[in-house]
């Protein structure tokens, strides 16, 4: 890393960031109660970001040897001669920095026999459901970084991820995920039990009636929407037209949205961002008011603000999304719908916030705070700004959720949102 950095600087590059990543991971994929594939992976890579006269180049080196590094450096120099400057580029962070301690790291995870805990989880779910499918994943990562601005940093992380979908009869299913960076906090059996519980509650679903309802979003259902909302706070997405959060200091509702890469128990915490700035907790939306976008050093300088330590060298990005709002009984509704999972969120217009998404797995009609009927065939067709404005309250229990559609770990409670438009095929 140091060699590549110094050679690139010698050859006239202005800013250089070199990172090294080594990852070992395994996966057990199970279907119809049985493992159908084991997966194992070992990768390493040196990633290179460098600039010359505001021209930005990125590449990587996988075959790590001096001769391959020299070859790559030559290519980078030639490449830089043929590309154009990014007039918005304003440099990288100046070090050195001091870093706080690591988030929880469990080096034993990668050497565990994961099939034993998976067997227990599958059996737990099968106590009250007919079949299950999902994944168990474990990993161990090493990450270090040096820059031309006197930054040297390193971090280790470990993780476990479990996703289980339980089924009974046709259209009766429940899905629950959990993740942790230590085996100690990994609630795999509880998660399996909850997926099966939702599948059981989903018995004999009926078509819902069209209309506007108060909707209670479970942890799994709200996390993908929070991913969308947090990504809309990246200044890059605002500039490119991918964001419905277009005005700073505007009130969008009554809730708080944060990014926090320092959480001890998150699978995605990191001591530093992609340019080596020590990470922190950033409140993007404070009591409904959009206080800041997510920035790296370069975008922050453009807008005359401080970096929020969210580099992304191309696009600033959240690490761990944290949501909060007024506490209350989310089920305290006269008539509403409880949604336990969503998928396929798509926008008609990102900047206006027009979107639709499809509840999947258990969805329930709630009357006077109680589940009275399992539902199917729903779609939420609404606008993100309306949704934010109508956030009412959340319960106290916060879970860390990562899922197919919530790739950024999200710490969320269950949330009640009023006046959500429910549509379905009318033919």
């Amino acid at each position, binding site marked *: 890393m140091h060699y590549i950095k110094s050679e690139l600087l010698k050859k006239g590059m202005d800013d250089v960031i070199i990172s090294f990543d080594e990852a070992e991971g395994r996966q057990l994929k199970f279907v119809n109660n*049985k493992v159908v594939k084991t997966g*194992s992976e*070992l990768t390493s890579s040196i990633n290179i970001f460098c600039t010359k006269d505001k021209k930005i180049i990125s590449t990587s080196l996988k075959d790590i040897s001096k001769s391959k590094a020299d070859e790559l450096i030559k290519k980078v120099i030639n490449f830089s001669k043929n590309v154009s400057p990014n007039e918005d580029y304003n440099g990288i962070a100046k070090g050195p920095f001091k870093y706080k301690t690591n988030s929880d790291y469990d080096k034993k995870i990668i050497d565990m026999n994961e099939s034993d805990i998976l067997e227990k989880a599958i059996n737990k779910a099968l106590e009250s459901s007919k079949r299950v499918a999902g994944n168990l994943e474990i990993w161990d990562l090493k990450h270090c970084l040096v820059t031309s601005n006197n930054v040297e940093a390193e971090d280790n992380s470990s993780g476990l991820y479990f996703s289980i979908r339980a*089924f009974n009869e046709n259209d009766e299913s429940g899905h629950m995920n959990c993740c942790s960076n230590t085996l100690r906090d990994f609630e795999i059996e509880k998660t399996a039990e909850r997926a099966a519980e939702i599948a059981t509650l989903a018995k004999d679903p009926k078509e819902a009636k069209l209309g506007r309802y108060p909707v209670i979003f479970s942890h799994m259902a709200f996390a993908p929407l929070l991913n969308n909302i947090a990504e809309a706070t990246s200044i890059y997405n605002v500039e490119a037209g991918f964001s419905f959060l277009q005005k700073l200091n505007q009130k969008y509702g009554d809730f708080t949205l944060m990014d926090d890469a320092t959480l001890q128990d998150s699978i995605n915490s990191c001591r530093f961002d992609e340019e080596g700035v020590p990470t922190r907790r950033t409140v993007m939306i404070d009591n409904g008011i959009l206080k800041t976008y997510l920035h790296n050093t370069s975008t922050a300088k453009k807008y005359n603000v401080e970096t929020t330590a969210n580099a992304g060298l191309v696009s600033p990005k959240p690490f761990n999304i944290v949501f909060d709002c007024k506490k209350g009984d989310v089920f305290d509704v006269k008539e509403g719908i409880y949604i336990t999972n969503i998928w396929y969120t798509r926008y008609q217009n990102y900047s206006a916030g027009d979107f639709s998404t499809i509840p999947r797995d258990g969805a329930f009609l709630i009357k006077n705070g109680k589940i009275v009927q399992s539902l199917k*065939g729903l779609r939420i067709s609404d606008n993100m700004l309306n949704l934010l404005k109508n956030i009412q309250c959340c319960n106290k229990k916060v879970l860390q959720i990562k899922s197919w559609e919530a790739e950024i770990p999200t710490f969320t409670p269950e949330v009640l949102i009023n006046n959500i438009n429910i549509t379905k095929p009318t033919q």
Partner: protein
Amino acid sequence: MKEVAEFYLKKAQELGCKYVEVRAERRSLSGFILKNGNPDISGFDIISGIGIRYLINNNLGFVSTNNFDREKILHVLKKSINTTRNSSKISKDIYFSDEKKETANYKVSQKEKIRDFTEDRKLNILKEIDKEINKLPQRYLTLHDEIAEKYYINSEGSVISSVIPRISLMYFLTITENNKSIQRYMPNGASSGYEILKKWNLAKRIPEEVELLRNNLKDGISQTKGKMDLVIGSEVTGIAVHESVGHPYEADRILGREAAQAGESFVNLNMINTQIGAKIVNVVEDPTLENSYGFYLYDDEGIKARKKYLIKNGMINEFLQNRETAFELKNKSNGCSRANNYDVEPLIRMSNTYVGAGDSSEDEIIKETKKGIYMKSYMQWNIDDKRFHQRYTGSEAYLIENGKLTKPVFAPVMEVTTPTLWSSIDMIGKKVEMYAGNCGKGQPMQGIPVYFGGPMMRLKNITIQ
């Protein structure tokens, strides 16, 4: 790549694997972003590595690494086999269909070669387009090229080498008028050299499209709800056939293998020969289309690719299969197994999926529609995970009155079930057009290049929301 692949095939066999296949891959890529006229970041990369899939005691294992150090690979291979053995008590026995061994070496030729295009020429392609639309407040353009070299071998004697170049250019635009906005996202892609850009002609096509969308935003009416005929353009036909025919006919979904990720299917194994659409509907899946974005001649299990009819005369005709599902269904694989990179297992994937041509001209379809909507393009769409309930929201759309397009319509919505959609078709155009996409499936998520398309079609008596 060849030597390494052969070495590990042998090693895996020595370690007790009954069946082994090795994919050694090398992808050379470059990419460029132009955001609001400003070159954002440019990059190049070489992604190379090896993926080994094996059966040991009839349990399936997959291992991958980008480290070509023989000791390291051997170490991860042994560790992987241990994991597979440790899981055997809770594992399913997996069998593959018997298939013919294949030997092949093929490549897609390029007239204007990727390696001959300098970085400034590539960036200029985006700048030329941007110059024509630089009055728009937000323009996001990306260009990527790659040359994917693959060497595949398996323990049954198949040996297949391929070289496929790909170009993709995506634009995402925000058009504003009187404090309102409309957005357009469109990927273009092909297995080709840079000569494909002439065919795409984007510097001319995009500004024309922007003007039509601006008219839609300015003058589009939204009070066009209720039952009427809906004419969908080839772009909407394409997304509909991909989502509601291609996906539910993937045999792994039908058997539940993707249940916790991309979902299952409303189709079951007994539905072959079931009437699912109008008799004039034929749906084709064909990886062998020259220069298509989903092009390949052999899949990632070494099976020769072929054209197949998913729907023939409105009846379900064939599912997409790999060797695992073919064994369960007691037939042969039809070559749909694809992995988007060396480091992931191959899954059943679409390639180029389209509705076959009908016998009406586009003019005839409009002319014969008394009252309806023409939804030429779309922005938002989604479908449930069994592929039964779907929604498409129009971008460029028009009212049809007495056989003529009379005024633009703003964001008409069709929310419909799959059988209703395919049974309502009573006219199909002659001209088939294809659109590029990156289809997502699996865990880890694999985005894979595909085409989807077809002709203009008319759906009778559809509720527009």
